[in-house]
C-alpha cells in the first residue's frame, strides 16, 4: 500500500505543472472592470463575466454607489445595464444624488443604463410576477449587466407569503436565467453577517462583496471584504474604502504592489549628502535600503532628510518627501538656507513634497498617495518625516494597522529599488539609549541614532550608526553641528570621553579642545 502511494506521488511529481489558463480547452473568464480604483486588483482582475453577485452591507456603507459605479463602467448601448429598483431608494432619488459623482455620465441614461421600477410588482404581486417582469425586461434588451437594488426588500416582502423552498427556487431560477442570458448580476441588499449561514442567496451567489462602516472615536472607517469570488485569486482580508466625489475608492491591503518587480540587487551605494556620514555608513546607503533616523526633537533629522533628497537630485534621482509635521515651505526654505535648491526640481517634477495631515486618513490611502507620487515622478528616494506624524495623521481606527501597513509598503518599495529614509522622534533618556519607541526597527535595514550629550557645559549633538545591512560601518559616536550648509560631522572620534551614549559622558583624558559652537560669554 505504502509502495503504491509512493509510486503515485512520484508519478504526480513528474507531471509538469501548467497554469490553468494555459491548459487547452479551459474556459477563459473575461473580467469586467468595476470602475472603482483599486477594486479590480482586490478582485483579482475584475468581476467575472456572467457571475451572480451580491453587494451586501448595512445602510450607508456605499452599496448603491458601488453598484452605480460598476454600472457606469460597463454600460454600452449594445450591452446595456438594467437597473431594477425595488422598495428602498427610488431611481429618481438615486439619480439626484449619484449625479454628484464624477463617474456619473448622464449621456448613458436611457440607452445604456435603464432604470426599471419594480415597486408595484413587488407590492402587489408575488415572486413569480417579479421573476416574470425581470425575464420580460431582460429578454427585451439583452443586458450585459443587471442590478437589483434592493434585492433584500424583494425577499423581505416575499418571506411573509412564501415558504423557504419557494424562495430558494426563485433565487435559483433568477440566477440561472440571468447567467443563461449572459448577464453579470448584482443583487444589492442590507444584510448583516449573521445571516450568511442560513440564507440560500449566499450559497447560490458566485461573488459576495461586503461593505462595512465602522465608527471609532471621532472617525468613520469604511472597509470592504470579498467573502467569495468564484474562480479568482482575490486579495484576502479587509480593505479600506473611501467615498469621495469620484465615488468609491478601494485601497488594497497589498497597495497594488503585489506585481511590483523586485530589482536585482546591485549593491550600489548612495550618498546621503554628508561625506563624513557616507564614510561612516561604509560608503553610503545601499540602494533599496530602508534607513531609520532616530533622535529627539531639534537634533537635525529633517536636515539630514533634506540633504539625502538633495544628494539624489544632484545625480538625477527624483525624490518624494512625505511630510506630516512641517509645511512644504518649511522644507524648501530649510533647503535654501543650506544652499540647496528645491524649487527648481519641484517645478521640473523631479521632487514632490507631500503634506499629508488630514487627521482621518487610513494607512492604506496615505500610502497610496505616496505610491502615486513615487510613480508620478519616478522617485528613487523617499523621505517619510516623521513616522510619529504619519501615525498621528491617521484615523484612530487605523493606527492599529500602522506597523503592518508600513511593513508592507517598505518591503515592496525597497524591493523595487526605492531607497527610503524615515525619521522617528525618540525622547532622550539619560539612562538608556533607545533606538525608537516604535517596534519598527525590524523594518529598517540601517539605523542612525542622534542624541544630545552634555560636554563641558554645552548640550551638543552626536550620532552613531547602529545598524547597517550587508556591510561594515563605523561604530564611532561622532559629534556634529548644523551649519549653514546643513548637517556637518566634526572632530574625529571622541576618545577623551566614555559613556557618551548615556548623554552624560565622563572625561577620561585631558581634553584641550575648542568648542564647536560659540560658548556664551561669561
Amino acid at each position: 500500500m505504502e509502495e503504491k502511494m509512493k509510486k503515485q506521488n512520484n508519478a504526480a511529481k513528474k507531471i509538469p505543472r501548467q497554469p490553468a489558463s494555459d491548459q487547452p480547452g479551459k474556459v477563459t473568464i473575461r473580467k469586467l472592470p468595476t470602475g472603482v480604483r483599486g477594486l479590480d486588483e482586490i478582485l483579482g482582475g475584475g468581476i467575472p463575466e456572467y457571475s451572480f453577485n451580491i453587494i451586501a452591507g448595512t445602510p450607508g456603507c456605499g452599496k448603491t454607489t458601488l453598484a452605480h459605479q460598476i454600472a457606469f463602467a460597463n454600460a454600452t448601448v449594445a450591452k446595456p445595464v438594467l437597473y431594477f429598483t425595488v422598495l428602498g431608494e427610488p431611481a429618481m432619488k438615486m439619480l439626484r444624488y449619484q449625479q454628484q459623482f464624477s463617474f456619473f455620465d448622464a449621456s448613458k441614461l436611457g440607452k445604456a443604463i435603464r432604470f426599471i421600477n419594480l415597486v408595484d410588482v413587488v407590492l402587489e404581486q408575488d415572486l413569480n410576477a417579479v421573476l416574470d417582469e425581470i425575464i420580460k425586461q431582460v429578454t427585451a434588451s439583452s443586458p450585459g449587466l443587471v442590478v437589483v437594488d434592493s434585492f433584500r426588500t424583494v425577499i423581505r416582502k416575499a418571506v411573509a407569503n412564501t415558504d423557504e423552498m419557494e424562495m430558494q427556487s426563485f433565487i435559483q431560477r433568477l440566477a440561472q436565467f440571468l447567467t443563461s442570458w449572459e448577464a453579470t448580476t448584482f443583487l444589492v441588499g442590507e444584510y448583516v453577517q449573521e445571516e450568511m449561514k442560513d440564507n440560500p442567496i449566499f450559497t447560490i451567489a458566485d461573488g459576495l462583496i461586503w461593505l462595512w462602516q465602522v465608527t471609532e472615536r471621532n472617525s468613520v472607517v469604511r472597509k470592504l471584504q470579498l467573502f467569495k469570488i468564484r474562480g479568482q485569486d482575490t486579495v484576502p482580508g479587509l480593505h479600506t474604502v473611501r467615498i469621495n466625489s469620484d465615488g468609491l475608492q478601494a485601497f488594497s491591503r497589498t497597495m497594488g504592489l503585489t506585481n511590483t518587480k523586485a530589482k536585482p540587487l546591485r549593491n550600489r551605494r548612495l550618498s546621503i549628502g554628508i561625506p563624513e556620514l557616507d564614510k561612516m555608513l561604509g560608503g553610503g546607503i545601499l540602494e533599496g535600503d530602508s534607513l531609520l533616523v532616530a533622535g529627539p526633537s531639534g537634533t537635525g533629522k529633517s536636515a539630514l532628510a533634506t540633504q539625502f533628497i538633495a544628494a539624489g537630485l544632484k545625480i538625477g534621482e527624483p525624490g518624494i518627501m512625505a511630510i506630516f509635521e512641517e509645511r512644504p515651505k518649511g522644507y524648501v526654505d530649510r533647503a535654501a538656507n543650506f544652499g540647496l535648491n528645491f524649487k527648481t526640481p519641484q517645478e521640473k517634477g523631479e521632487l514632490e513634497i507631500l503634506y499629508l495631515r488630514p487627521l482621518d486618513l487610513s494607512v492604506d490611502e496615505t500610502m497610496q498617495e505616496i505610491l502615486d507620487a513615487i510613480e508620478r515622478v519616478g522617485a528613487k528616494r523617499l523621505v517619510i518625516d516623521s513616522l510619529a506624524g504619519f501615525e498621528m495623521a491617521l484615523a484612530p481606527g487605523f493606527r492599529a494597522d500602522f506597523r503592518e501597513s508600513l511593513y508592507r509598503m517598505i518591503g515592496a518599495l525597497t524591493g523595487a529599488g526605492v531607497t527610503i529614509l524615515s525619521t522617528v522622534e525618540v525622547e532622550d533618556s539619560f539612562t538608556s539609549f533607545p533606538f525608537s519607541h516604535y517596534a519598527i526597527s525590524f523594518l529598517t535595514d540601517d539605523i542612525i541614532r542622534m542624541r544630545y550629550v552634555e560636554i563641558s557645559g554645552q548640550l551638543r549633538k552626536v550620532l552613531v550608526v547602529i545598524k547597517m545591512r550587508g556591510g561594515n560601518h563605523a561604530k564611532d559616536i561622532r559629534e556634529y553641528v548644523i551649519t549653514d550648509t546643513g548637517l556637518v560631522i566634526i572632530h574625529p572620534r571622541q576618545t577623551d570621553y566614555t559613556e557618551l551614549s548615556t548623554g552624560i559622558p565622563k572625561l577620561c583624558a585631558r581634553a584641550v579642545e575648542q568648542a564647536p559652537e560659540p560658548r556664551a560669554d561669561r
Partner: protein
Amino acid sequence: MTKPHPKIRVLAENLLAFEPGGKTTGASDANAIFHVCEKLRPQLANLTGNVGFRALLSRALALAGAESAGLRLLHVKSNGSLEGLEELKEKVAAKEFLEGEKILLSHLLGLLVAFIGENLTMQILCEVWPQLYRNDRSVGNGGKNEKAE
C-alpha cells in the same frame, strides 16, 4: 411658493404644442395636458414608480392650483392619470383652460428639474418627444425656479 423659470414655461408650451389640442384655442375636445402626462407617466414611473409619479403630479397640481384656482377641480387618480379635465373645460373659459395646462405642466417640469437637474430632465423629455428643438434643450438658470412676488 416658487414659480417655474420662464424658460420652463416655454418648454411646457412647446410640449403641449406637440400634442393634440395643444395648438388650438381650447375649443377642441382634445386635452393636450392629458396626453403629455400620459406620455410622461411610464417614463417617470420607471424612475419613481406609479406612486412616485402620482406624488409628483399631485404636488405640481397643488402648486399650480395656487396660481390658477380652476385647476383645483382636477385630481390625480390612483393610477397617476389626471381626472376632471372635462369638468374643468366646461366651467372655465377656453383661454383660462389653456393657461391652466401651461401652469400645471410648468410646475411638473419645474419639480423634475429641481429633483434630477436640467440635463436629465431634458434627456427624459427628448426620449418622449425626439422632435424637441435644440433651442428647447435649456431651461436656463440651471433649472432654478423663480421666487414668486
